[in-house]
């Protein structure tokens, strides 16, 4: 199985290259046989990469430590779950996963377009297989072959970094990769539209579900990463503006911009060049994100290892793709004339445009911050850095402006908003926002930026709720339906719009949670068993934690644990218990891992960290004297809103993604091609 996997990797490359060439040549010359061959190549590469991944997973599951990759990321006692996720634990395997997911989405794109949109297919396949082939070349020739063998077979592997032995960490990278790779499909369609000269909104209509799919995976991937950081890495923090975190945020920001700007092109025939630019930029940023993780160019807790070969190959690839895209856009520029112009600053076009500009502004500031050490070293010879204070300062006003636009965009009129439109739609939300700010201020919330955030959040929420209520009422009275049924029909008839609003609700919740962090509290104290720590939450609750002492069990793949037990009282009543630990994992015996205890409630989390045990060695040996320990107790405000917000974003995205029966796109293209699979649509 392992050998088969290795063989499959080698076979996949020539097939990928052949398919890419066949796609481009077939498209150019109108050769249906070549195009068909290219499409089969997509499926073939997918199948071969399944074999490759299965080979790697088999090597992990059967402890084949003669393979360098397995020896570095696994050990015998590692739980099976983490052996399977070994596929993406390190750089080599995660490149395989990337290629696998890309080929999965490529196959899905080819399959769903087997009988429609045929005029786009040849070049789309060409682009998709070009990107796949690039990753295969990297895997085989950049010194990162996952099947590299050692000259001997070590008795045991070096184990998986304990920080990665966490549920969220196993799903965070694949989810991000799903988002990154899914975006290659819209990019491929866009390039195909440029090459074939079919530059109306068709390519956008075809790919908007793909764009949303990619966006949805990126959003979830980022949130899973925050969850992991909150539980494992940050001891209460969830975002550190680390270069690699930032790199995952960049394509999400531009994809968000793109999701909005395509609506202007669809509705008003504007921004065609802009959209081409955005789709290209987002694609390049997905590659940049892997590049940053893999090249070790910029120091980060996430980077795998320095590998200059990879850095060079990725840079060259990004440069070539960027160059070709820009040339194509320049070549087709005359075909992308705008059909309309912006009539007023007070219009939905304008609100969407500002949303785009601000999102790009955020992208640029983050990119600037990430690359700042390189830029300064290049120019002055002395590296300078910027850290979280920079990112927070710059992105706070940007984030607030976006939040405001999120309330304005959905209800302001297209073309030119009348005075009536403005008054009708904004009086109530603005009033609610103002009342919330005033109410909070009177209740003693005096943090300026948090107040602004809460006020804007209330404004946006009111806008959305009013829209839902109005829509439901209108439908109920026109169709004579009950309100619940009317609501259901309202959403299902225009899933994209209402799904989008639901996504907005989720995003607003996440923003609110960020503002809540301004009110976090913490206490540090050293205790003997029987002693207590008290902390008062910003909501006025009094938590008292009584230290019950340490125990030292031994979990799977661990040498020892030191588990501290605390009983908790909230406002004088029993509130269960919390444990916090130090764990010593096998193969990682010099670095104990800190495991926090979290008691989650809707408005505040009680968060317990076992900071230090005075005699940790003794505690691991279960010695009665070794009990004295230092704890940190935090109250983290509204963190749960991030996870709930993420859940609502997911819900809204699924509503938007759900295929609607008889959508205009599919019927239109079916009737064009007569529902049969044509050998090839007319050449451009």
């Amino acid at each position: 199985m392992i050998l088969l996997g290795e063989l499959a990797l080698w076979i996949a490359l020539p097939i990928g290259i052949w398919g890419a060439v066949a796609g481009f040549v077939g498209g150019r010359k109108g050769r249906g046989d070549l195009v068909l061959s290219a499409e089969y190549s997509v499926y073939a590469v997918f199948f071969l990469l399944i074999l490759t991944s299965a080979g790697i997973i088999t090597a992990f599951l059967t402890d084949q430590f003669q393979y360098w990759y397995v020896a570095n990321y696994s050990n015998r006692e590692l739980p099976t779950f983490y052996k399977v996720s070994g596929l993406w634990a390190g750089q080599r395997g995660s490149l395989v996963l990337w290629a696998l997911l890309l080929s999965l989405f490529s196959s899905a794109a080819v399959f769903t377009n087997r009988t429609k949109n045929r005029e786009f297919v040849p070049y789309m396949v060409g682009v998709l297989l070009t990107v796949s082939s690039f990753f295969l070349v990297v895997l085989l020739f950049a010194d990162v072959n996952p099947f590299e063998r050692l000259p001997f077979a070590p008795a045991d592997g070096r184990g998986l970094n304990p920080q990665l032995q966490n549920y969220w960490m196993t799903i965070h990278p694949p989810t991000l990769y799903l988002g990154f790779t899914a975006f290659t499909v819209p990019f491929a369609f866009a390039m195909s539209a440029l090459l074939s000269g079919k530059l109306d909104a068709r390519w956008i209509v075809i790919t908007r579900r793909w764009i949303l799919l990619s966006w949805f995976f990126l959003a979830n991937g980022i949130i899973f990463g925050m969850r992991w950081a909150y539980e494992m890495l940050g001891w209460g923090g969830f975002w550190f503006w680390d270069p690699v975190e930032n790199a995952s945020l960049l394509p999400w920001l531009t994809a968000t911009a793109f999701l909005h700007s395509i609506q202007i092109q669809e509705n008003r025939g504007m921004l065609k060049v802009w959209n081409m630019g955005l789709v290209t930029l987002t694609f390049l940023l997905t590659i940049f994100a892997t590049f940053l993780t893999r090249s070790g160019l910029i120091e980060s807790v996430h980077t795998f290892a320095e590998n200059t070969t990879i850095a060079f190959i990725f840079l060259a690839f990004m440069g070539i793709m960027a160059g070709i895209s820009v040339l194509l856009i320049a070549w087709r520029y005359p075909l992308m004339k705008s059909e309309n112009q912006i009539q007023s600053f007070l219009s939905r076009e304008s609100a969407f445009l500002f949303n785009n500009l601000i999102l790009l502004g955020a992208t640029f500031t983050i990119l600037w911050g990430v690359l700042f050490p390189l830029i300064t070293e290049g120019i002055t010879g002395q590296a300078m850095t910027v850290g979280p204070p920079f990112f927070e300062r710059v992105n706070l006003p940007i984030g607030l402006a976006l939040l405001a636009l999120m309330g304005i965009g959905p209800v302001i009129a297209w073309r030119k908003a009348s005075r009536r439109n403005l008054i009708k739609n904004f009086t109530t939300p603005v009033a609610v926002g103002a009342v919330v700010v005033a109410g909070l201020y009177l209740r003693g919330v005096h943090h300026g930026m948090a107040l602004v955030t809460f006020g804007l959040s209330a404004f946006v929420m009111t806008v959305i709720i009013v829209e839902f209520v109005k829509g439901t009422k209108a439908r109920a009275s026109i169709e004579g339906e009950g309100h619940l049924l009317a609501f259901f029909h309202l959403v299902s008839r225009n899933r994209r719009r209402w799904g989008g609003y639901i996504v907005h609700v989720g995003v607003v919740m996440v923003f609110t949670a960020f503002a809540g962090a301004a009110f976090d509290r913490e206490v540090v104290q050293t205790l003997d068993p029987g002693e207590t720590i008290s902390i008062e939450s910003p909501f006025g609750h009094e938590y008292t934690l009584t230290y019950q002492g340490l125990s030292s069990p031994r979990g799977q793949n661990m040498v020892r644990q030191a588990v501290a037990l605390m009983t908790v009282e909230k406002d004088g009543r029993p509130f269960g218990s919390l444990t916090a630990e130090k764990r010593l994992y096998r193969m990682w015996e010099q670095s104990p891992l800190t495991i926090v205890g979290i008691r989650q409630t809707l408005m505040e989390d009680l968060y317990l960290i076992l900071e230090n045990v005075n005699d940790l060695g003794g505690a691991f040996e279960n010695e009665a004297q070794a009990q004295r320990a230092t704890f940190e107790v935090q109250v983290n405000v509204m963190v749960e809103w991030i996870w709930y917000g993420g859940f609502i974003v997911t819900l809204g995205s699924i509503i938007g993604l759900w295929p609607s029966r008889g959508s205009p796109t599919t019927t239109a293209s079916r009737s064009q091609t007569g529902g049969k699979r044509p050998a090839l649509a007319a050449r451009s």
Partner: protein
Amino acid sequence: MRDNGKFFVGFGGVALVVTYLIWTGVSDTMLYYLTPMELMARVAEDPTFHDVGVKVSGRVEVGSWTRAEDELLHHFTVVDLEDKSVRFPVEFRDMLPDTFNDTDVVDVVVEGRFREDGVFEATVVLAKCGSRYEATAEELLG
């Protein structure tokens, strides 16, 4: 693009604001990123450098880490990666990351101020177990 005179006005406005934010953000928060050797050279040249926030990358000296009893206060020594004789003590009042230790090869980035008494007062410590990341064949043998 005939259509978008206003577009460009908006673009210019947003670009100006973003530039302003970046400019002030950078000038107020940027830090020197130095090696221990460069840090020593700087302070020798210009004593006011003691008051400037800096970020320094180096390696934790094996066996140099001590921790105050019952208190969140750590001391350890950072050495230069190239010239092992260049070193300075670090004082840090917070929780150290799990990846930090003084028995293995640990690379650190410390952020803070190099005080006049020769102690580096760190506000942020990032640690990376250099040797733990990926091992070569020889290391796996051993």
